[in-house]
């Protein structure tokens, strides 16, 4: 992952050496190779993006003719309590996801990296990553049963431990935390793999040098391993946040109405309801641009941050 950020950065610069063999090749060859990608890109990415901006300036229900609304949709967003609610929920979800994933992923990677037993190490790595390859649809349905108040797996064992379990998804104060927990189970394998890959790029010579200088395990961790892993940690933070900010699948599957008292309503869930259930296409487009704005700010922060305080 250390290479990744440097690679990424060179992407925007022209390559140092221009292909010398291309002197004879004509322009059209390049366009020919690029044309499928370019055509699809214009039709399904760039065009729709511009269209989303245009649509956000209209009131339209997909049936009657669209009406120009100027910035009406955007000003309406400011006075929309449900949008604030969904934004707040999304930030709670994304922050909880960020913290639990980074801490959990790093600790698990450090732990697994220290395991000497091959079988145990394989088992832990596999079981951590297993849930991630399963679709959210299957995961969400399964967990509805795991948390079922009458015969659920977790309900039963927590009960045996003397813990009185709430009615997870129907309790406004527990619905979102439940989804945060399920998301952790489903997605931690991803962060774990990234952290493990990053950990393995820390040069052994540095660790040995630190040890020879008399550093104990904790000092080595704080002063060598974590600084060397900072690009990975930073990257994992950005990816986790971006993924979490777009949370939709489990929310729509487990709490199709946005949960009790809108307690699980996320921004994308709200956008989906506005666009595809109440057919307020213009307003939904305005909300979708808000999602884009957050993505853009976070991505730009990544560029800025990786230069400022990430060890290279």
């Amino acid at each position, binding site marked *: *992952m250390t290479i990744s*950020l440097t*690679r*990424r950065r060179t992407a*925007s610069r022209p390559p140092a050496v221009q*292909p*010398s063999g291309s002197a004879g*090749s004509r*322009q059209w060859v*390049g*366009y020919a*190779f690029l044309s*499928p*990608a370019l055509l699809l*890109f214009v039709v*399904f*990415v760039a*065009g*729709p993006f511009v269209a989303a901006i245009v649509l956000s300036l209209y009131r339209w229900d997909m049936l009657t003719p669209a009406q120009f609304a100027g910035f009406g949709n955007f000003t309406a967003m400011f006075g929309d309590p449900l949008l604030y609610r969904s934004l707040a929920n999304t930030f709670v979800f994304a922050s909880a996801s960020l913290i639990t994933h980074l801490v959990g992923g790093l600790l*698990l990677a450090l732990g697994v990296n220290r395991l*000497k*037993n091959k*079988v*145990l190490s394989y*088992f*832990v*790595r596999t*079981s*951590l*990553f*297993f849930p991630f*390859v*399963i*679709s959210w*649809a*299957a995961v969400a*349905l*399964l*967990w*509805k049963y795991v948390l079922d108040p009458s015969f659920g*797996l977790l309900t*039963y*064992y927590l009960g045996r431990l003397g813990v009185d379990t709430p009615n997870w998804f129907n309790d406004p104060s527990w619905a979102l935390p439940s989804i945060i927990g399920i998301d952790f189970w489903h997605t931690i394998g*991803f962060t774990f*793999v990234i952290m493990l890959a990053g950990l393995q790029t820390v040069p052994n010579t540095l660790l040995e040098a630190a040890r020879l200088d008399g550093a104990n395990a904790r000092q080595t961790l704080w002063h060598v391993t974590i600084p060397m892993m900072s690009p990975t940690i930073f990257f994992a933070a*950005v*990816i986790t946040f971006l993924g979490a900010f*777009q949370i*939709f*699948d489990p929310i*729509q599957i487990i709490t199709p109405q946005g949960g009790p008292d809108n307690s699980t309503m996320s921004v994308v869930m709200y*956008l*989906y309801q506005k*666009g*595809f259930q109440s057919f307020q296409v213009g307003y939904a*487009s305005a909300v*979708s641009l808000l*999602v*884009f704005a957050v*993505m853009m700010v976070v991505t730009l922060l990544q560029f800025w941050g990786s230069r400022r305080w990430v060890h290279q």
Partner: protein
Amino acid sequence: MGAPVTGPAAPARRRRPVRPARVVLGLVLLVVGVLMVAPLVWLIVQSLTAEKAAFSLPPGWLPRPFTLDNFAGIDGLIPFGRMALNSLQVSLISTVGSMLVGVLAGYAFSRLRFRGRQAILLVMLSALMVPVQTTVIPVFVLMRNLGLVDHLAAVWLPALINVFAVFFFRQYFNTIPRELDEAARIDGASHPWILFRIIVPLSGPAIAAMTILAFETSWNNYFGPLIFLSSPQHMTLPIGLVTLQAGQGGSSVVVFAAITAVVVPVMVVFLAFQRSFAASIASAGIRG
């Protein structure tokens, strides 16, 4: 289960005093691993248990009495086979297609010179910041005008362009020495020949990683099919599963059988290609 834990401690004993910390670490990670797979084991066990005994308390960890009847019940609720074929069709077309489109574009960006090359690359790269939710409404309008809503094409067509794969292939191709294809050029080889006979064979790991990632994403995709597909015979598995829970009078064991039927093949594929899976995630780490 004690055996694997004593393993790491045993060799250490020869060199240093016993390391109880390492044993504790092994135990903790063992418990974490067991907790992670427990819900999946429970899922599979219940799906293999006869209906009257399933979901008993305390939870059963062996399918007793064992039965496969629950799986036979799935087709009475959703056209499972049809949905599986739909999923396969969408995933195969979008994966193969996007890899082909990506390889061609990656080659253009890496090896060919044409006006606006850097500008086009930059525009495509910045599109990585545009989330699918921003483009989905206009794409839906487009599909509606094309009469493609509730057709599988509405799901796989937009997936043919994978900007991340284009960029990823370009980066990888840049690491392949130019002398190789220049020599072939001098010998009169055409660009398609160079790409598919020299560059692609040398890019095995990159293409494998991207293919796995693209297939997995498409196979598990929920958002796109939810928006574009509505009739059961056109749905993909994730959407089909969720309609199943919406209550069609089927018993919970049958729902579990259906989830199992979706999950187990993925698990098997994952176990077979575990290394490439992890590699694809690690390389996906390049995405920002």
